[in-house]
């Protein structure tokens, strides 16, 4: 179950074959909202490969951190599912 605001993470810029992480969230700092569980790794599934399952987490980003001054209201948030191995601690 979720442990909100557990730690801050940064998404690496490195290109991935099948990145579920949208371009807008790359290199942005968010916080883990909840840990969802283990799922097939889409980087392998895309090539019909099977390997160990990977942890999927939900990351919460402040609109101000994603859009800067363009944000309607900086304290609104966007939450997205991102694989834990696409994140790095900051």
């Amino acid at each position, binding site marked *: *179950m979720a442990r909100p605001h557990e730690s801050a993470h940064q998404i690496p810029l490195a290109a991935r074959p099948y990145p*579920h992480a*949208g371009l*807008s969230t790359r290199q942005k700092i968010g916080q883990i909202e909840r840990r*969802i569980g283990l*799922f097939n790794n*889409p980087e392998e599934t895309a090539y019909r490969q099977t390997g160990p399952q990977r942890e*999927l987490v*939900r990351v*919460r980003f402040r609109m101000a951190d*994603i*859009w800067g001054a*363009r*944000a*309607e*209201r900086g*304290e*609104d*948030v*966007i*939450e*997205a*599912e991102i694989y834990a191995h696409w994140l790095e601690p900051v």
Partner: protein
Amino acid sequence: MPHDHHDHEHDHSHEGLSPSGHPYRADNDTDLSYWQAMEIALRELLIEKGHLTAAQIHAQINAMDSRSPANGARVVARAWVDPEFKAALLADAGAASRAMGFDIGPMHLIALENTKEVHNVVVCTLCSCYPRNLLGLPPDWYKSRAYRSRTVIEPRKVLSEFGLELPEQMQVRVHDSTADMRYIVLPAQPEASLGLTEEELAAWVTRDSMIGVGLPQAPQ
């Protein structure tokens, strides 16, 4: 084609407006697209080789078409009247929905609770991810590029175009449903509906309120 009123003094070019005042829709006299041809070829092969029958395919299409937001509305209404169910729904929406008897398949579902401080709205920026087993087919606008692209950057403006003006102090949470999870919003119960039965409450729960672009409403 609306052909209710045959008028033999006029030709039937179908230009302009129908007798009832609606524009005619163009016939789809175009070639099949690549994927339409692929679907037909695959379907006919599956039938020819005995893997499926035409009746089974039609039964599945009927089952998909029969799902409607009424399923999700029953889940929401149960959560409004049963605190234990609500806790179970927020902890594991898939398991709670299955416990109510809904076949949601392998779908992983998260319920997002609206409160006085927080308003949730769901979008699939990638395509059309949607909790079809509980809400039926997604509306066309949900799949539009405008909704998918704008909701993540200007959700308040998008919601206002749906007629939903949120207080400045309320936090908007946009949920991008683009991977393995599906989302349903658990709208806050309107005060005017307090004391109603679960069945009566289900009629208040609109499809849009479970996507997050609307609020529950008293049945018309």
